[in-house]
């Protein structure tokens, strides 16, 4: 026992001090999952020799940490999975504006911060999934239409606590105005067959099992289920094609204000928007590349082309708080 304690104390002592960061590396705080960033980082390290260190966590804690660390932060780059979070990080002043021709050229204007503090790296489309057994796609038209009484007891939704739905409703508020958006959300709640689910996959499983007929999900969740069962009795529908287009969001990144390896981090960010990296970054999670030059993966291509909403997604961040309040008022849990 005594020896064990001694050994433990020795190990503790040698590892206690925070590690020293050397020159040839970049430090990333990421809310995007490890298995979606590590392969891309590994490729970059292979190519350039620059080491990339990262920690993953939810956006809230990471941002709180970045803010608290202030000038002492080891982080050079922040990656998150939702535009609202990027907007908020910029708002808190932890991201630095960048002048980069490459980024401006590779990334369409509506998928990055007008003030150049953050940049979308992959696009996720939040669309309608329906039961191919019980729904005729002709019945479907738009997100708003799902509030119509014809969908009573036929709708399943993921919880309003997920930021993807908060962004969806925020963009709807921007498009339709507050009152009408609230009407739509109330309609959704009235049409729910069962209380909201904790994730998109569960909502689709409910459609599959016959608890309801339609739901709203990010396409890559559908892609995962389809990969497991190619004959799955679910299908994607692209709503609002006659007007605003499908709601899209981004997973993106920004360089921190107090980055210690600023140029190295900018190089990485530019590379991430390039053709090689984009294919991998989006492909790993069946998302859409932001760079219009890059082809989407074959499985994703098979879902067909769609018109996406081209309102600047910074709006999703600006209106998020109001959107959450709206959903609370409408009783959308």
């Amino acid at each position, binding site marked *: 026992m005594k020896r064990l304690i001694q050994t433990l104390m020795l190990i503790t002592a040698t590892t206690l001090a925070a590690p020293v960061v050397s020159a040839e590396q970049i430090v990333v705080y990421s809310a995007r999952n490890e298995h979606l960033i590590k392969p891309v980082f590994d490729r970059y390290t292979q190519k350039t020799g620059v080491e990339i260190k990262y*920690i993953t966590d939810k*956006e809230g*804690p990471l941002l709180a940490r970045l803010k*608290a660390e202030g*000038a002492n932060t080891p982080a050079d780059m922040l990656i998150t999975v939702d535009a609202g979070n990027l907007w908020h990080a910029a708002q808190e002043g932890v991201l630095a504006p960048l002048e980069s021709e490459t980024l401006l050229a590779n990334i369409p204007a509506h998928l990055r911060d007008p003030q150049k503090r953050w940049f979308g790296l992959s696009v996720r489309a939040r669309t309608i999934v329906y039961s191919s057994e019980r729904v005729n796609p002709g019945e479907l038209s738009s997100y708003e239409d799902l509030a119509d009484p014809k969908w009573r007891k036929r709708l399943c939704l993921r919880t309003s606590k997920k930021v993807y739905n908060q962004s969806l409703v925020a963009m709807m508020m921007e498009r339709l105005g507050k009152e009408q958006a609230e009407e739509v959300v109330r309609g959704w709640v009235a049409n729910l067959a069962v209380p909201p689910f904790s994730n998109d996959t569960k909502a689709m499983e409910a459609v599959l099992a016959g608890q309801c007929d339609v739901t709203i999900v990010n396409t890559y969740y559908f892609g995962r289920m389809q990969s497991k069962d190619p004959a799955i009795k679910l299908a994607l529908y692209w709503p609002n094609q006659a007007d605003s287009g499908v709601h899209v969001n981004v997973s993106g990144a920004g360089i921190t204000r107090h980055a210690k390896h600023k140029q190295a981090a900018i190089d990485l960010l530019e590379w991430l928007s390039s053709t090689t990296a984009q294919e991998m970054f989006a492909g790993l999670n069946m998302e859409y590349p932001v760079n219009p030059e890059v082809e989407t993966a074959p499985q994703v291509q098979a879902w067909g082309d769609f018109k996406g909403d081209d309102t600047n997604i910074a709006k999703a961040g600006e209106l998020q*708080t109001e959107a959450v309040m709206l959903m609370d008022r409408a009783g959308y849990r």
Partner: protein
Amino acid sequence: MRQVIDQGGTGSSRRSFCARQGWRLAALGIAAIVAAPLLLVFSGWLQPEGEVWRHLADTILGGLIVNTLLLLAGVGIGVLLLGVGLAWLTTLCEFPGRRFFEWALMLPLAVPAYVFAFVVLGVFDFSGPVQTFMREAFGADSGLPNVRSTGGVITVLVLVLYPYVYMLTRSAFLTQGRGTLEAARILGLGPWGAFFRVALPMARPAIVAGVSLALMETLADFGTVAVFNYDTFTTAIYKAWFGFFNLQAASQLASLLLLFVALGLIGESRLRGRARYHETSRTSQPARQPLPGYRAWLATATASLVFSFAFLLPLVQLLIWAWSVLAEDMDGRYLGLLGHTLMLGAIAALLTVSGALLLGLVRRRHPDRLTGSMVRVATLGYALPGSVLAVGVMLTFTGLDNFLNLLSRLIYGTSPGQILGGSLFALLMAYLVRFLAVAFGPIEGGLNRIRPSLAEAARTLGATPYQVLRRVYLPLLRPGLLTALLLVLVDVMKEMPATLLLRPFGWDTLAVRIYEMTSEGEWERAALPSVTLVLLGLLPVLLLVRRSGYGHSRGRKA
């Protein structure tokens, strides 16, 4: 107690006085470490957030409070019945399979609540295999209850949290010894009378400690309720933080949670009043009552049912899922994950249990108000939602860092950057803050049952305080200490929010891996790290059962 020490100290030098106060100062230090992040949480009130409050009060707050109270009541009653009942059966009764269930019923402790929650949903929800089978066999109305309901959440939490009560109560029953109960029976009490009027009141501190751990965890839980989309008070905290980007309002809400717990604990100790429960003499293992006939089998059936649902079911389901992804997900990194998980668990357990022992002993020596409230503050950390506590600890250390950097700039003209933030030390402190209550429960329970006269006698016979600790307290506290070590070790290995936020680069654990998978809804891929974690959690349980004859004082002098 105090008089004895003072008598012993009449001839002693100033040094021993310092040593005595030194321990008390050390305890004060521990309390301060815990208090710092808690104070930061309360400091949220410095900035009023009227709009968020008005909105919450107008819309969801009422419902959330009702939900939370329902959950607390359900979980409280559930863990009390299951924990105390099973502890009674396995320590004081004899039934088929008793020797197996004695330790097997602790195993559900190794299953993280959030993992159990997604297993239960996967198996029993409408789209899961059980209901699908029932629908196919019996038509549309299968008659099965909806699992995504209040009852479902309560059941899940009771099954993962009852081991706290079970383990604490068990060590209380075990140390009660044969004499007390025999005396009660001789004095004319029936078996039920002896249970309710003697055994139960004597085990009350342990039972209370166990139930309050379970309730604190229920209050702080976010993972399990999120899987069920069951909104509780923590939902409001996270909504304020992630939805409204308002950490201040989130801290304000969290501080109310703390206040509620503090009041509850104070209330309980008032109710308990000045009653003290010390055993009169230590005897061997209490005599087990063989249960007659069908009752013995009923006991076996109950224990099997609990064991199957709380442990076998998740284990088997996780193994099935893990098997399906084994080829693509299993890689060399698992060894590193295992190593980190175990190492963090072991160091944190030793640290936390030592801290708790120190607090317990200091409070015993100094039964004054100040020490009492110090200890109370030090054990509040468990009631805070993990992420909020993690941020509190993070803010404490980055604050210290910023201060040190400022100092260094003033003196040396350069700033060293991060020192404590992002270090292993900060993470270990976070574990200490969070799990001190877990370690303190069993130790306090054990201390309360030791008669003060024992230590007094030892002192009178010339033993030094260190000798009293080593030769009186530690041996008598053994079951409590082992329970505390085990609970903290397993809890640290399961811990997610603080590990995520405060781990140094590269210090990924199994819980981190589970987070990576579940945060994007990939339950099946989360099964591999989860099942590894469960199996790893079994290790210390089995080790303790084997090596130390945990709880079996049979043939041993305790």
